């Protein structure tokens, strides 16, 4: 619908990465229907992720998890004014083409769905729509950025309500960035080899001390305290998947997580936000999940 003339350019790295900049300090919530999307918007979510089953249900029900029905996604787009994201399978570039044609604002190439390609991720430079991808460490994050990801999220272990893996991933990414910044320039070549990441991106991270794109946290966040923990660990914002709508009081928990993400350094606000929320999602300890069933291991 843009009616501009002249020097206008769409789908540039700057507008893709810039979109993620606007989400910072916010909470992106998984929603499976219009009612949940409205609850999320009313609670102050900065975007919603439209999907048919939250990760906890995908985990419980098993089977192959795929892109959601376009009808379901478009109903949610029509219901809310905030950005709408949708997930596609790792490497499934046709699902991505379909989602892009719906005018969705961001694609999550997600390990929560069953991968379509166990070798390659999507070539994200081929799309106007921006992509967010999961990462467990710096090398993985930089490989995704090299493929065109405009935003990175730590993977955590989705659908568990156990924040420990998200913590590990944030510490790993942060630690590897800090290590690069302390290296001599002539050591960065080997660092790039060890990270299995392109030298140019490694050098950029070593110089700036941060990823070239926005870094959110995802996977296992279930409480306002979890959200604030990730923000204090250096996340730019948080994704909450099953944690809200698998809890006793989604509207209040959603609002509380939004408050906690903004006031993550204010323990008084966090205490108030944590009061009277009812039952959190029951959750599963990551250690109890057999390794082949761990979603964070997907992606390469």
């Amino acid at each position: 619908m843009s009616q501009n003339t002249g020097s206008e350019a769409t789908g540039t790295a700057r507008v893709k990465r810039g979109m993620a900049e606007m989400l910072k300090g916010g909470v992106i919530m998984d929603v499976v229907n219009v009612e949940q999307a409205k609850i999320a918007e009313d609670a102050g979510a900065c975007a919603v992720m439209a999907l048919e089953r939250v990760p906890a249900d995908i985990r419980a029900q098993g089977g192959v998890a795929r892109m959601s029905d376009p009808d379901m996604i478009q109903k949610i787009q029509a219901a809310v004014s905030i950005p709408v994201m949708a997930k596609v399978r790792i490497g499934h570039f046709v699902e991505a083409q379909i989602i892009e044609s719906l005018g969705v604002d961001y694609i999550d190439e997600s390990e929560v769905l069953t991968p379509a390609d166990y070798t390659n991720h999507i070539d994200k430079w081929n799309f106007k729509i921006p992509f967010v991808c999961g990462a467990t460490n710096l090398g993985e994050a930089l490989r995704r950025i090299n493929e065109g990801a405009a935003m990175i999220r730590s993977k955590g272990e989705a659908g568990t309500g156990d924040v420990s893996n998200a913590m590990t991933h944030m510490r790993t990414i942060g630690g590897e960035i800090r290590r690069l910044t302390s290296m001599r320039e002539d050591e960065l070549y080997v660092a790039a080899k060890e990270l299995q990441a392109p030298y140019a991106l490694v050098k950029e991270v070593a110089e700036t001390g941060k990823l070239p794109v926005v870094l959110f946290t995802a996977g296992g966040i279930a409480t306002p305290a979890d959200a604030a923990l990730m923000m204090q660990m250096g996340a730019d914002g948080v994704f909450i998947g099953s944690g809200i709508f698998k809890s006793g009081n989604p509207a209040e928990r959603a609002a509380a997580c939004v408050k906690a993400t903004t006031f993550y350094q204010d323990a008084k606000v966090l205490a108030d936000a944590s009061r009277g929320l009812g039952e959190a999602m029951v959750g599963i300890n990551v250690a109890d999940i057999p390794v082949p069933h761990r979603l964070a291991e997907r992606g390469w």
Partner: protein
Amino acid sequence: MIVGVLALQGDFREHIAATVSCGHSALEVRTAADLAKVDALVVPGGESTTIIHLAELFDLYAPIKSRIAEGLPVYGSCAGMILLADRIVDGKDGQKTFGGIDMTVRRNAFGRQVDSFESDLKFNGQSLHAVFIRAPWVEEVGKEVQVLSEVAGHAVAVRQGNLLATSFHPELTADMAVHTYFFDEICKGR
């Protein structure tokens, strides 16, 4: 001069960096006590529904409105433009704004994210490369409002008195022309 940057959600860090690079001190504003310390305010890009929701919850809504009424210089980019508009269309049902500029702003007017774009334009007569992200445009303005930029026949930068608003994000580019205009032309002498 202390420039406050509303730090509830969005790209407030980029506005702080822009403010500092223009030689002013910046303060993150999250509470009414923070607001009381500032001589000017920047409302960043982000989600306007999220920002106004948090402003209401944390008792910033009324104080910001009254500071605007008292003449506080305020600059808003993108979501900030929406929040400075007296009237909005295509907002969330019942969405409030701080208001102050006599204009109607259409939210996400240029389209969804796939329509987000970069473009060269004139801002107050100066050439500028601008980044528009799910950007609003100004649908109509009152007679006190000065239009500083247009794209395809729509106002994308406006000023009314001490209030400045742009549809685009100068905080995402290195060109400080808009921030400089705000600090030098609107905040001067504070």
